[in-house]
């Protein structure tokens, strides 16, 4: 099928329905992992920007993108990876960070590339909002998360790594 009768808005709409495999309340579009969509002569080119380059979900995401575009009748899909600019949690909109918090993951603070300084800041518990928390493990269950503990509500929680 010729994709010329499909506009990019319809494609974005379809891609917005793909959830992040590790954070199901957010879509790949909200995560800014899908960076751009471009119509080519006979298909579509999608630019991806990985959160962490070793993220094992990347292949799954690509397969999902192909499947969704196939539903729109687009079979000729080129998926490329871009590091320019590098993906950063600073790209996440405020309402997306709020969705993360509501899901139980402490959202990352703005870092402006100053990761070390930002890592020293207090982290609010996503459940009771107390900042009486401490870092339990700098690494977590996925590459993009760390483990904290709330000394007030006595609950451990995950925090999205500022990057």
């Amino acid at each position, binding site marked *: 099928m010729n994709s010329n009768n499909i506009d990019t808005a319809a494609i974005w709409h379809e891609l917005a329905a793909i959830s992040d495999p590790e954070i199901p309340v957010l879509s790949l579009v909200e995560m800014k992992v899908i960076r751009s969509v471009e119509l080519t002569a006979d298909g579509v080119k999608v630019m991806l920007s990985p959160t962490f380059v070793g993220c094992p979900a990347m292949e799954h995401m690509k397969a999902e993108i192909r499947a969704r575009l196939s539903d729109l009748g687009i079979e000729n899909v080129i998926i490329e990876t871009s590091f320019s600019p590098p993906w950063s949690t600073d790209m996440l909109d405020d309402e997306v960070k709020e969705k993360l918090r509501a899901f139980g993951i402490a959202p990352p603070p703005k870092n402006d590339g100053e990761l070390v300084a930002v*890592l020293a800041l207090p982290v609010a518990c996503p459940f009771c909002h107390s900042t009486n928390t401490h870092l339990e493990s700098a690494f977590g269950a996925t590459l993009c998360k760390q483990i904290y503990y709330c000394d007030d509500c006595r609950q451990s929680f995950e925090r999205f790594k500022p990057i």
Partner: protein
Amino acid sequence: MTAAFSQEAVKTFLLALADDELMLGHRDSEWTGHAPVLEEDIALSNIAQDELGHSLVWYTLLQQLGGNDPDAMAFERPWKEFTCCRFVTYPKGDFAYTVVRQYLFDEAEQVRLRALAHSSYLPIKEAAAKILREEAYHILHSKSLVERLGDATEESHRRMQAAVDAAFPQALGMFEQIEGEDGLKAAGVFPGNSELQLQWLHQVVPVLSGATLRVPVTEANGSLAVRVAPDTGGRRKDHSEHLRQLVDDLQAVYRIAPGARW
């Protein structure tokens, strides 16, 4: 672009970067399920996964220059074809050795990636900027472990000192010259291994000394002189038996069904 450089030299450079990441990633992954505490198990497993991801980035750039696909590079090459430094091929040792190796490697990554983030070769420049952000978590972790374990207890000090004694000459092998390096230097692709080693020494010597660990380096008039011979050979594919065993292990599953789709 300040000067012409050979594409072959860029490929040689990328291959060394990729092979180092792959092998250290595999060695780190050997701690999964075996680290002394759960947090370290998670940390080393994460770091291993990051390093494998970084090797994929470099192998992908290599592929774009006409190389083989990354899976073939990692899983189909005979062990004698890898150009990793010997340092990353040695067995994981005890936890002290793993911590010291990771720290020395992470500091080398810091100086190298900072330089590459200004590379005249755009694909390397962009990839380095991305990887550098992720590496911030590695260096924070390994450096704090060195600082804490260096003089925590008599046993931790003894083990950490033994690890530094073993790892330091090996680590110098990370900076072994590669073929075509002068051309890459002149073209601003990277500042050269001697320069990187010097920057690296200025990072690691104060940190190790501060952690009460002796290093085989003499300081005179602000310059640092290394007193041990570097353990080189890896970049010339002159490896020890340890790499053969590592590659056997790394490729075992792949070789059962090459090219299988999972």
